């Protein structure tokens, strides 16, 4: 063993004499530095001094993460292909392999001294990549304004983490290129194979066809998941696979080189059994790593977490998504919380709301332990959900909008005369999407639990069946005399979905589908809402009916055109609920709708103007008031603001006052922004934005509210000023003639 090591070290030193003058390590350094330098130049040219509101982040780390993409996807693999090819070509070109084999040097030393040299080159490249990134980031800080939420500490541990992950992830690519380059003496083949492998990832990526163990994919994953494991491991499972697969290949590759041919390498029982041991052990490990995991259940139902913020928060509310019922109020102490839910929790999507300001979606149920990892800075927030529903919540967040042919046909009314084409598209899309629902895995190879996957597939099925309903509706309108037959394909889809699955009723899509099935046979000449509510009221009493009814009534409340119609409707059907909570909730919704209705008094609120004086709506009585509710951080608000100001100038002489009401948390920001706005618009800031939000049923901003001279609502939800109808409604309210 001692001889082996000294023989290896001698070979390694000799290898370094041999590579003199090739500049191999310099190449590594340069290629490592390219991507940070390019990024630096781009930032220097492109950088605007606009400071976006963001969560605090490490300035240097962010720079590295940005440069990681080109490095891990392209420059690093490129370097590996080049280095390996060069170091093996030194000997292929000059007859060096024979020369080395006629020296007192073991083949192991020959092979691995070269391999080790490549690893050194890789390491140099990684080190240069990291250090040039830091250097460029530091230089950049002299030319470009560094946002004030940027943290300027050197992220030592994160750098080591990224560096070692890059090194380990690159092993498999390196090993494969090395084996090929040693065996094939022509330089062109190893380069072609390398580039082909590299490009294949790029080609196959959009189709989701790249397997997780694909060498270049393992490397490029680093750029995608720069934080690495969700579960706190140093390496992710694909990086371990890089090692286990690498060892198997290296074992085969070395023996192939050692005995010249694959046949000679494994021609005796001993050699074969050794190979089997290696394959069995490391192959087994690979298999074990590749096998997806599911989180086990927890013995309690827990919702806990931590919020990283300079602010202090009081409570987290967990609400269900159907009737917005609060199922838990969790107190937060020092921005940390831990809560055991005693009552049974139906596994479903819920909304968590932190102090009425920040919210997110969480999927969980009985016997789940959820850890909420939140970051909040001013108006920005970021929430990560870990624990037993890690994969489910990640899949929720990453849900892609699937484009499919069927919805295109239906939207554009293409092929309506050939229903078979659309049915085919529906079936294909459904098949593909339900299968794709099985493919999600986290960085640590965790997949959602079966209940989630099944639920997701049911929702996908719902979506496709709604398309089918759409088709039926369109066909019966266009071709009333033709029958549309779904055939076995639609029957197959329909079989997958029960019509009484209460757990799906948090989704309006499912409600729509069940409703459509309930009213399908009703040919009376009445509107759909009435048909639906009639059908629902015939259902068996229970929570399924309650939920259906709730959706239907709230929909009717929203769509009712007069206060009278709404009240009648509510009065007629509200008694049908078995559960009183729904009744209360509906009454509440109705009250809010009522309070915002035309002619109802607009709730009074207090505000402050730019000069710091208290102001209120009372002071504007006798004039129409048009309010734009906005905030400095809100993009769509900024977009609408110029239109709003344009109308303010246009109707300056009319009996109307335009008010821009800010709901900003940060008064300073509002102040600076408001100062620069048109003087025609009054710039106000709410003193109590929470109260305002409740009273005015403020769900989103910007919001445009028109109030008459008596202080009553004309319209509590005007369309956006960029919309043509905005001005029409405005002129109508002011009793101005229509414009030519």
């Amino acid at each position, binding site marked *: 063993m001692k001889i082996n090591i000294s023989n290896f070290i001698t070979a390694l030193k000799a290898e370094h004499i041999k590579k003199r003058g090739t500049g191999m390590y310099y190449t590594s350094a340069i290629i490592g530095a390219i991507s940070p330098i390019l990024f630096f130049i781009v930032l220097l040219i492109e950088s605007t001094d606009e400071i976006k509101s963001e969560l605090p982040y490490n300035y240097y780390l962010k720079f590295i993460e940005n440069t990681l993409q080109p490095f891990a996807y392209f420059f690093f693999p490129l370097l590996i292909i080049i280095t390996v090819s060069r170091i093996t070509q030194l000997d292929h070109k000059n007859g060096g392999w*024979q020369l080395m084999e006629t020296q007192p040097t073991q083949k192991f030393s020959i092979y691995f001294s070269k391999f080790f040299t490549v690893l050194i080159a890789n390491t140099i490249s990684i080190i240069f990549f990291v250090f040039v990134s830091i250097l460029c980031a530091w230089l950049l800080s002299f030319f470009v304004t560094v946002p004030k939420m940027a943290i300027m500490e050197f992220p030592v541990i994160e750098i080591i983490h990224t560096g070692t992950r890059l090194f380990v992830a690159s092993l498999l690519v390196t090993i494969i290129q090395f084996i090929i380059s040693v065996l094939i003496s022509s330089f062109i083949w190893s380069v072609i194979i390398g580039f082909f492998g590299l490009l294949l990832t790029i080609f196959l990526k959009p189709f989701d066809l790249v397997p997780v163990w694909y060498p270049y994919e393992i490397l490029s994953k680093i750029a995608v998941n720069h934080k690495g494991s969700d579960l706190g491991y140093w390496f992710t499972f694909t990086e371990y696979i890089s090692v286990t697969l690498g060892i198997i290949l290296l074992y085969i590759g070395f023996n192939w080189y050692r005995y010249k041919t694959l046949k000679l390498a494994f021609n005796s029982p001993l050699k074969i059994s050794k190979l089997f041991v290696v394959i069995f052990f490391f192959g087994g490990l690979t298999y074990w790593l590749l096998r997806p995991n599911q989180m086990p259940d927890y013995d309690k139902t827990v919702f806990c977490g931590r919020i990283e913020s300079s602010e202090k928060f009081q409570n987290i509310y967990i609400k269900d998504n159907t009737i917005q019922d609060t199922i838990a109020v969790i107190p937060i102490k020092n921005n940390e919380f831990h809560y055991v839910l005693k009552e049974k929790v139906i596994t479903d999507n819920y909304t968590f709301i932190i102090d009425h300001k920040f919210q997110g979606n969480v999927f969980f149920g009985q016997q789940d332990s959820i850890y909420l990892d939140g970051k909040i800075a001013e108006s920005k927030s970021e929430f990560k959900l870990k624990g037993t529903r890690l994969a489910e919540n990640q899949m929720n967040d990453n849900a892609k909008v699937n484009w499919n042919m069927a919805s295109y046909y239906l939207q554009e009314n293409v092929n309506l005369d050939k229903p078979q084409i659309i049915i085919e598209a529906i079936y294909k899309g459904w098949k593909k999407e339900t299968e794709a629902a099985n493919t999600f895995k986290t960085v640590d190879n965790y997949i959602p639990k079966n209940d989630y996957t099944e639920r997701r597939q049911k929702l996908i099925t719902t979506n496709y069946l709604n398309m089918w309903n759409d088709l039926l509706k369109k066909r019966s309108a266009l071709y009333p005399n033709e029958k549309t037959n779904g055939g076995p394909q639609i029957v197959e889809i329909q079989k997958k979905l029960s019509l009484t699955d209460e757990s799906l009723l948090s989704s309006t899509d499912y409600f729509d589908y069940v409703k459509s099935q309930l009213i399908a046979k009703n040919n009376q000449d009445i509107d759909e809402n009435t048909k639906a509510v009639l059908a629902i009221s015939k259902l068996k009493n229970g929570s399924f009916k309650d939920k259906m009814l709730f959706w239907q009534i709230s929909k009717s409340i929203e769509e009712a055109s007069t206060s009278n119609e709404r009240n009648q409707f509510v009065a007629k059907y509200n008694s049908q609920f078995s559960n009183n909570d729904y009744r209360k909730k509906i009454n509440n919704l109705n009250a809010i709708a009522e309070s915002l209705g035309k002619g109802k008094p607009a709730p009074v609120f207090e505000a402050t103007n730019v000069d710091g004086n208290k102001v209120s709506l009372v002071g504007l009585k006798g004039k129409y008031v048009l309010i734009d509710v906005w905030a400095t951080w809100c993009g769509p608000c900024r977009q609408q603001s110029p239109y709003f100001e344009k109308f303010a100038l246009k109707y300056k002489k009319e009996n109307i006052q335009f008010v821009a009401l800010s709901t900003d948390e940060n008064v300073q920001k509002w102040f600076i922004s408001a100062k620069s706005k048109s003087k025609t618009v009054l710039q106000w800031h709410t003193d109590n934005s929470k109260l305002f939000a409740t009273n005015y049923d403020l769900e989103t901003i910007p919001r445009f509210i028109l109030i008459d001279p008596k202080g009553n609502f004309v319209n509590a939800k005007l369309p956006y000023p960029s919309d043509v109808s905005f001005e029409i409604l405005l002129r109508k309210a002011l009793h101005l003639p229509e414009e030519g």
Partner: protein
Amino acid sequence: MTDYIIQTEALNFQYSKDKKVLENISIKVPKGSIYGFLGPNGAGKSTTMRLLTGIIPEQGNAIKLFNQPLQKQLPFVFSKVGSLVESPALYLHLSGIDNLRYIAKLRGISEEKIHETLALVDLTQDGKRKAKQYSLGMKQRLAIAMALLSEPELLLLDEPVNGLDPNGIIDIRKLLIRLNKEKGVTIFVSSHLLSEIEKMCTHVSIINKGKLRFEGTMQELSKAASFCKIQITIDDAENWLPKLENSYSNVKMIAQNQIVLNIQNKEAIPDFIKNLIAQNAAIYEVKILDGLEEWFMTLTNEKRTDEN
């Protein structure tokens, strides 16, 4: 018992099932000899060389180096063996000195040896130049220097004078003879040129089409090729023909004034000429047609005809 440095016992080798490249090659290379391994191109010389150096793995266990099976000694036997196989293996991007430094590192030899060896092959002046700027001869000399660097007990040289100019050939030959005499290095040298082998070897073997045709000392070789075919240009050849036929064999007139005949050996030529001149013959030219070279050719051609 003679001490054999290289010994093969019925060495066989085949790349594919039906084609034997080497068949029953048994050679014995005594210690301290310069052993010539002679054969035309494609005879199996290089394959033998590669087998002796373990570059291609042996199919069996027929090769012994230093009285030990070769396979068990790989790769450390090379600390006693210097070799030059086929085209010179050099790193063209390195200087001559760095090429030697590389070998010195692998073999654990002090760097002082490098300059000594460079001087030995007359490359001192060019040591710092890159090998790619060297002429073919210089490359060959550098490759030999790399084989010599560790003062091995055995030198395996495959066509060492290939591509050298006459002066270079002579220099290398002198160098090899000197190494053999002074340091007792056993040298195994392959060549397709009989003249080359003739001039420096003590022992020789001849291989053709994968079979060993001859093995022995140089003296034994001369004996085996114990006739000499000469051609004389002489006036009045017709008259001389019967006279010569009496004393020599294979006498033939090939042109009006040209006769070929066989005599015992080269050494007999001066007496043969004296004798003719004494009989007033007008001789214009005497030419050896057929010496060892010709014999070598027949030996190797014979096989070709055998097979056809």
